[in-house]
């Protein structure tokens, strides 16, 4: 499994954060920087692309929650796509899915 990577790109108004690798404690710095970048760049929604994320643990969940909190403060909507069924279940159990839109793929995530 690889180290965490996150890159931001714009798709229209939406800032898409493409992530890959292990989303755990070691991902904190990279994710924080990428998220700050996403907040700066656009004015619309922020979409997390979990497609290449291989593993998420509770620390990773905490990082997502933390990012979500910052987005809410900034009045920005957050979406997610590319989660495996297992991690979609975890997002539901933790109620993250109550506060961010979970979509099947990028097209669906950007359609709204």
């Amino acid at each position, binding site marked *: 499994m690889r180290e965490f990577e996150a890159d931001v790109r714009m798709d229209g108004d939406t800032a898409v954060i493409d992530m890959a690798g292990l989303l755990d404690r070691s991902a904190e710095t990279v994710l924080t920087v990428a998220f700050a970048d996403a907040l700066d760049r656009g004015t619309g929604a922020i979409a997390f692309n979990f497609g290449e994320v291989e593993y998420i*643990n509770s620390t990773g*969940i*905490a*990082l997502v*929650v933390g990012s979500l*909190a910052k987005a809410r403060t900034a009045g920005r909507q957050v979406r997610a796509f590319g989660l495996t069924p297992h991690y979609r279940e975890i997002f539901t159990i*933790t109620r993250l899915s109550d506060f961010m839109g979970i979509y099947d793929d990028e097209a669906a995530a950007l359609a709204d």
Partner: protein
Amino acid sequence: MAILKRRSKSEPVPEPAAPSVPIGEGVEIPEHDPLHAYLLQAGGPVDLERLDLASASVDALKAAGSVLIVPLISQGELLGTLNLGPRLSDQPYSSDDRRLLSNLAAQVAPAVKVANLVKQQKVETQQRERIEQELRVAALIQQTLLPKELPSPPGWQIDAYYRPARAVGGDFYDFIPLADGRLGFVVGDVTDKGVPAALVMATTRSHLRAAAQRSSTPGAVLADANEILVEEIPPGMFVTCLFGVLDVDSGEVVFANAGHNLPYVRRSGDVIELRATGMPLGLMPGMKYDEVTATLGAGEVMLLSSDGIVEAHGPGGEMFGFETVQSTVGQAPDDDVIGHLLERFDAFVGTDHEPEDDVTLVSIRRAAGAAESAAVFAGSEDAPVILADFAVPSEEGTERRIMERVAEAVEAYGFPADRLERFKTAVAEAAMNAIEHGNDSDPSLDVHVQVKAQHDTITVAIRDEGGGSGPVAAETPDIEAKLAGEQKPRGWGLFLIEKMVDEMRTHDDGTHHVIELVMHRGES
């Protein structure tokens, strides 16, 4: 002045009291060179200019500009020399000078000797420690691979005895539960010892377990495993191995053999050898393995063994031998073939015996009758099997390794994919909790993991040294408070564990803290 060690270069330097010309490269004085003996006999400073010796060292020293050589001798050994060039003043070395030099040499020589001894001892100690460390690591690898408990299917008595030679073995054995009440069993022997052998053992065991689930017959299992091992095992190493499947209900045993010792079956006093042959694993691709079938009736025993018992030598140099094993098995009491064989073996090799090879014995015996079955095995149907038992230092990030190891241990148990994912998440979270909270991420503290299987239930116990810190409750984290910034975003671990497994229990004995995760296999 310079100190040179015997058989190493000498580096002359200026003499402090009366400076002389520095000399360049060092000169070796090998033992066979006449100068060596000359210096030993001289016992004091020697004028090179007056020396007439057919010696390569003398020539070299003269060429280097040496005029005076002071040998460093300790306990009759020439440790080195002090080589001096001419005095800057061009005066010859006076007798006072020589006396000073002799005294100096007398002081220096023993010090050099001690330094040499210390260095040599360090090297030897390091070597010894390296070897011991490797043996320790190999033994640890191996310990985690051998079954901690023996299976006890109703109506059967399974015993095993294992004694490695010099703390590290090439022998291994394994029991693999299979579908439909069948039990796979393995005995094997890896060539060589140490960590490479232990790793080959680990990989062989793992591939056999996987092949046992995939392939339908023992011959196919060995052929399957052989194809993979041929690629993976280092050249020159191979594994002898016997793989069989016992049908617990009918008593039928089918097995295939890759160069390992043949099994014996004892029925009413007769002991027969079951012959199936095949090439050891890991040598050549495309091997086929014959299969032999036998049925164990009530009271009958099958004995599997390794080389260590047959090839052991007694004090007179004679081998224990196949015939002795066979006849001893025949004479053994019904329910303790292994014990009887070992008694005979220990008597044969004597008390001073240094084990030459690992001894592995596995016996599979069918209960003599319904009454014995009920009496002996009452309650043992519930005996759990330990699938894994290991400890890992508490380093951040190790929870994933623990998760993978546990997942591998339960491979044969056939969790449906989604339940396996939940199970793995719970294990990783519990391990992370143990590492980071229980053991404060201190790598000198271990997290201990045990995976137990009983009927359709897997229990994983994860233990850390963080006992005494009070009961741990998994409260549902308040996500709204966290999103509003009223709480830290963390604290999801224990909650996730509880949601992912069927049951979570914690125990605290003041020193240790244990999380137990219980997961039923569930429907596919």
